[in-house]
């Protein structure tokens, strides 16, 4: 049901032309489409608690929507606000938290400014200092999803004692600059956020010792990305099978050649395997929020799904280009857009070998994973 309605909505609103137009637009996305997502589908509110006007649905539902979004290369802040919602949902209740959740439910873009992308997705490039006149934030965060469209930023910062805090900062506050980052995959635009002595008050603090929490939020974010990747892997398979059925060479549809059929079969194996791990991970996320699954279980589920889905998306999109032959490398056909999205999601939040190494730590060293 949810799957069908999501797919039909996107088939109508996020077709190839719409995606290309969004990428080319000076705003880097289609604001009208995002309003339609918010008003007609209310996807921004799926994980928002009811008390903040959200739907308070679960991670399986969210995964279904994100999968459909990946399948249609949806170019919208959906991941950004969902990631922020995940973070807000695990923060202690506070006025600033509630306001952010309400903002999200009403369609505002709230982005998480988390990473300096040097060595780790968990290390902030922003730090807090107390100048005497009050607290200020300085530093930069990269790869902030849809930061340029955000009214509010959730800024992760290093405290002076090396612990981690999270702050709610309006993107038009003095000292904040947000710059769109041109990227290879244009369907998931990113920003760089710079903070120069941005004054903050205690009331803007979401969390004061956020280290462990961030780790879980990254796991949850991975699950959202995995859903996107499963969508990309599925669409790459579907597009390619469709093309090979139409394309004829040697008096046969090329879909009748074993070289093509077996490649397609391998693609299907990859996407179904990834989908099985995705929905397990989504169930685990629900269980974790219900305190029925441990932190380690959530981490493991996310690592496994990410390793598998990153590989599936890249393999399927890459194989898809090959199955398309010459037209696969033209701008005209969509398979290359999936290929670029597969690549960008693969390196976002860590590559498969890192995920596997984390699993290996758990299995072989009896210790905690490295990240």
């Amino acid at each position, binding site marked *: 049901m949810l799957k069908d309605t999501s797919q039909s909505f996107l088939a109508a609103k996020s077709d190839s032309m719409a995606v290309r137009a969004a990428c080319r637009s000076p705003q880097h996305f289609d604001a009208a489409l995002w309003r339609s997502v918010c008003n007609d589908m209310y996807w921004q509110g799926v994980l928002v608690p009811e008390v903040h006007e959200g739907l308070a649905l679960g991670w399986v539902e969210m995964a279904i929507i994100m999968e459909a979004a990946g399948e249609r290369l949806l170019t919208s802040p959906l991941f950004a606000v969902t990631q922020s919602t995940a973070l807000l949902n695990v923060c202690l209740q506070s006025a600033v938290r509630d306001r952010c959740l309400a903002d999200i439910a009403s369609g505002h873009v709230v982005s998480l400014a988390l990473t300096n992308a040097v060595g780790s997705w968990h290390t902030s490039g922003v730090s807090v200092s107390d100048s005497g006149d009050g607290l200020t934030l300085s530093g930069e965060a990269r790869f902030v999803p849809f930061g340029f469209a955000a009214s509010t930023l959730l800024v992760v910062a290093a405290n002076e004692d090396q612990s981690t805090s999270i702050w709610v900062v309006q993107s038009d506050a003095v000292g904040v600059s947000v710059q769109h980052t041109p990227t290879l995959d244009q369907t998931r635009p990113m920003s760089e956020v710079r903070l120069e002595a941005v004054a903050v008050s205690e009331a803007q603090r979401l969390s004061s010792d956020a280290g462990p929490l961030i780790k879980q939020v990254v796991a949850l974010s991975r699950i959202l990305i995995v859903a996107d990747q499963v969508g990309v892997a599925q669409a790459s*398979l579907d597009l390619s099978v469709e093309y090979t059925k139409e394309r004829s060479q040697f008096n046969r549809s090329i879909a009748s050649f074993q070289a093509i059929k077996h490649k397609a079969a391998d693609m299907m194996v990859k996407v179904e395997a990834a989908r*099985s791990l995705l929905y397990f991970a989504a169930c685990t996320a629900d269980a974790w929020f219900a305190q029925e699954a441990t932190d380690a279980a959530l981490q493991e589920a996310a690592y*496994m799904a990410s*390793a598998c889905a990153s590989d599936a998306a890249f393999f399927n999109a890459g194989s898809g280009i090959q199955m398309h032959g010459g037209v696969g490398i033209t701008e005209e056909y969509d398979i290359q857009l999936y290929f670029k999205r597969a690549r960008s999601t693969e390196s976002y939040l860590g590559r498969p070998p890192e995920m*596997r190494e984390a*699993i290996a730590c758990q299995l*072989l060293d009896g210790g905690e994973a490295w990240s």
Partner: protein
Amino acid sequence: MELTFTAADELFRQEIAQWLNENLRDEFAEVRHRGGPGDEHRFVDERKAWERRLAEGRWTCIGWPEAWGGRGASIEQQVIYHEEYARAGGPGRMGHIGDTLTGPTLLAFGSEDQKARYLPDIRSGQAFWSQGYSEPGAGSDLAAIRTRADFDDGSRQWKITGQKVWTSLAHESDFVFVLARVDRDSVGHRGLGFFLVALDQPGVTIRPINQLTGTAEFNEVYFDEAVCAADDIVGAPGDGWKVAMGLLGFERGVSTLGQQMLFQTELDEIIRLAKLNGASRDPEIRQRIAEAHIGLRTMRYNSMRTLSGGEDGSLSREAMIYKLYWSSWHRNLGKLAMDVLGPDAELLEEGPYELTKLQSLFLFTRADTIYGGTNQIQRNLIAERALGMPKEPRGQAK
């Protein structure tokens, strides 16, 4: 996605677990964890006795209707059964083919008389079955079988002549079901019959096939005017293909979770060894162990999707990938075992050619991607049935 087990299911789990705990001991202690793939030829008599013990507890044929001595167990209960059986180290079941293939086939396609004659002995662990599908010239192309069955009007018997191959444990079985051509001029799927044939008769010769392991679990079975009664054909003459293919739908993956528990045991052993010999510090081995772990979990959730899925009995997309997935995974596991052991992987259990468990795993898993439909055939099936890609043009003999 998790299978949800009712309170009744949990009681059922306790019941089988307790029964296994109380029975898989003493004289049966030695068969624990034995008789699996690559070990099927071991402890045959003991495992037959075990089959009868199972039958006493009503733990054979639990999926059959109660009228035929089964328990009419639900999918969930069958999953539980397989899980607990594997967990307890239950031996490879001598009655497997009778329980899961002959029985369901007769229940679906057999006459009342056939059911009455054959089902009770299967259920009670008295009669053991093997299967006669493949032939030397009919492997991937199963429809190319040439074994023929002629009806002899005088004796009112079918006379079967031909050769079957890859017939596992035929020399330890009482019966074999045989797919044979009833119409000499027919080709392909048409003109076949499905026969129930006793093995202990002059027209049947069984020869073991020696394998790369030095052991012989499979046989060639030669039929030279072997006989079966007029009413030992299941379905009508010409319906053989339909009856044989019907079997393929019966296993809705209920045994896969049990199989995965065996895989888990193998992986655990490999992890143990890696920690012991330091291979666990090798980054490449670490990646592969993690991958093996992820693959096994993938199979588990995949099976759960299948089992919790559609009711119509048709294979879902995730079920169609299962054979290709597990066989490739298992083959990689065999190689991983060797690489974890390093040079020591060469050392035999003892001379002249007694393999260790992991060496057997390594060698036998090469068969996993071949029997029951090679990986190539699986990919054809996935492409054609799940993805709707066209069949290849039918070729000319070359």
